């Protein structure tokens, strides 16, 4: 059943941007409004995702600040923070609001700056990202986020025999896809040897197994189903939004490689949409590290447990494969401006379901899934989007 409708999407290019957050966000917001054919005075509410602005740029209370900058001052505005799942959680709340009739038209978006344009170097940003791990029981060990996903992934390698070469194949695939995305931070063909030659960040991850630090913004317009045809933007149906969490610190998780929150969120989203994993034509998943894509495609049920490591190497997750994953290039190549990532996945899938994705278009894409994960996989939001019949 349709819970809400996306009628417009837009995003900036991901990469270094020397602009204030409000200017960066305005570019994405206006692109989404123009795509939808919605004027500012038709927007009832604004749901913003920004994870780190307080730490990176001493910039908080961002929702009304950004609203003011784009002519939306006065309407209800709220900011969400759930680590890397920030803007998909904002999206979930917007869907609930239009579904229940609280609002008719909601702007949902995210913005973040993580590159050295912020004035922060790698060590400082690594410390800020590590803030999503447990303050008392993880941060004092010197754990980093590449380290978090290394711990999850090495357990997968131990249990299923997944190899470093298979992980590198995920990077090769997503960089291949990224070259077809004009908004992507990176994207050019590479190979497994080149990935494995880059320096180790946290073993088994080499530099090329890790998503970049990116700046960027993204936004979608969410309206109630009965207003879906009231605007010029071609509508895409939101049929499921699942949201689940898991234990922090990660030593308390029952299993490291299963990413339980993603499995539970997927089950919830699929049930709402009345679909199974077999119905999914295209997926955007949270590949902050190559191993994270392997865990995600298994948790979503797109591949059986233990077989996700082979998917990219076997060609199955390429745009023209059996189960295309991350046609945008994913976080790995498209980039990962933390708070902007969740809605950027939805922008990509909206284009895919409209058939507007040009060189990275997945054939006959009718049902799409977004998997956006936060922190050490302790938050996951899974969204099902469908082309309108």
């Amino acid at each position: 059943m349709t819970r809400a409708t996306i009628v417009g999407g837009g995003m900036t290019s991901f990469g270094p941007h020397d602009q204030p957050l409000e200017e960066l966000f305005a570019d994405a917001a206006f692109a989404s409004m123009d795509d939808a054919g919605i004027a500012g005075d038709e927007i009832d509410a604004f749901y913003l995702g920004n994870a780190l602005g307080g730490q990176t740029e001493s910039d908080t209370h961002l929702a009304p600040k950004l609203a003011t900058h784009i002519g939306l001052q006065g309407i209800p505005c709220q900011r969400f923070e759930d680590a890397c799942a920030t803007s998909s959680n904002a999206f979930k709340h917007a869907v609930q609001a239009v579904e229940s009739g609280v609002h008719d038209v909601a702007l949902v978006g995210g913005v973040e700056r993580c590159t050295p344009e912020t004035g922060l170097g790698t060590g400082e940003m690594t410390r800020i990202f590590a803030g999503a791990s447990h303050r008392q029981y993880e941060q004092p060990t010197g754990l980093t986020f590449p380290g978090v996903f290394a711990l999850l992934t090495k357990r997968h390698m131990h249990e299923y025999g997944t190899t470093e070469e298979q992980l590198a194949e995920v990077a090769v695939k997503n960089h291949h896809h990224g070259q077809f995305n004009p908004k992507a931070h990176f994207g050019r063909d590479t190979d497994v040897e080149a990935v494995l030659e880059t320096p180790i960040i946290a073993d088994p991850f080499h530099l090329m197994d890790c998503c970049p630090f990116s700046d960027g913004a993204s936004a979608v317009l969410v309206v109630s189903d009965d207003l879906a045809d009231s605007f010029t933007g071609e509508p895409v149906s939101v049929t499921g939004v699942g949201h689940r969490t898991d234990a922090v610190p990660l030593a308390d998780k029952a299993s490291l490689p299963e990413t339980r929150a993603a499995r539970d969120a997927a089950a919830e989203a699929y049930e709402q949409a009345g679909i199974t994993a077999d119905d999914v034509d295209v997926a955007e998943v949270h590949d902050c590290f190559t191993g994270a894509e392997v865990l995600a495609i298994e948790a979503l049920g797109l591949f059986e447990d233990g077989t996700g490591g082979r998917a990219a190497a076997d060609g199955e997750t390429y745009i023209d494969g059996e189960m295309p994953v991350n046609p945008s290039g994913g976080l790995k190549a498209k980039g990962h401006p933390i708070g902007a990532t969740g809605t950027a996945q939805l922008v990509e899938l909206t284009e895919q379901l409209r058939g507007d994705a040009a060189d990275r278009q997945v054939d006959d894409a009718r049902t799409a899934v977004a998997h956006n994960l936060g922190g050490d996989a302790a938050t996951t939001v899974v969204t099902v989007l469908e082309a309108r019949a």
Partner: protein
Amino acid sequence: MSGDRTSESGPLAYADWRDRLEDGELVGLECRSCGHVTATPKRACIDCGDRILDTCSLPTTGTVHSETTITVPPVGFEGPYQVGVIDLGETKLMGRIRGDEGVEIGASVEFADTVELDGMPAPVFEPVE
């Protein structure tokens, strides 16, 4: 504070855990209702939600459940160093792993020391010969 608690000093708080870690002791909590054990303080059981938790002594030897060597550390740390999730039998605990070679999943390790960040200690494990 509950009167029927068998723990020495009521609910295990961070300050107690920290002090005892620095004294060379690993302590956790066991749920009186379902028996679930955690290696770090909670105010309720993460398995059943019950609030009556008894402080329990944890073994100081275990096996490496997962590990990584971090080469690019946060500011304030100097890499490389190894971090692992240590399986202590009934529960797991994250810590540093110290050793010249680095250890692999399944290796036996022993609680040996602590490292500190901003006054917060983390356990350090060493390989058992």
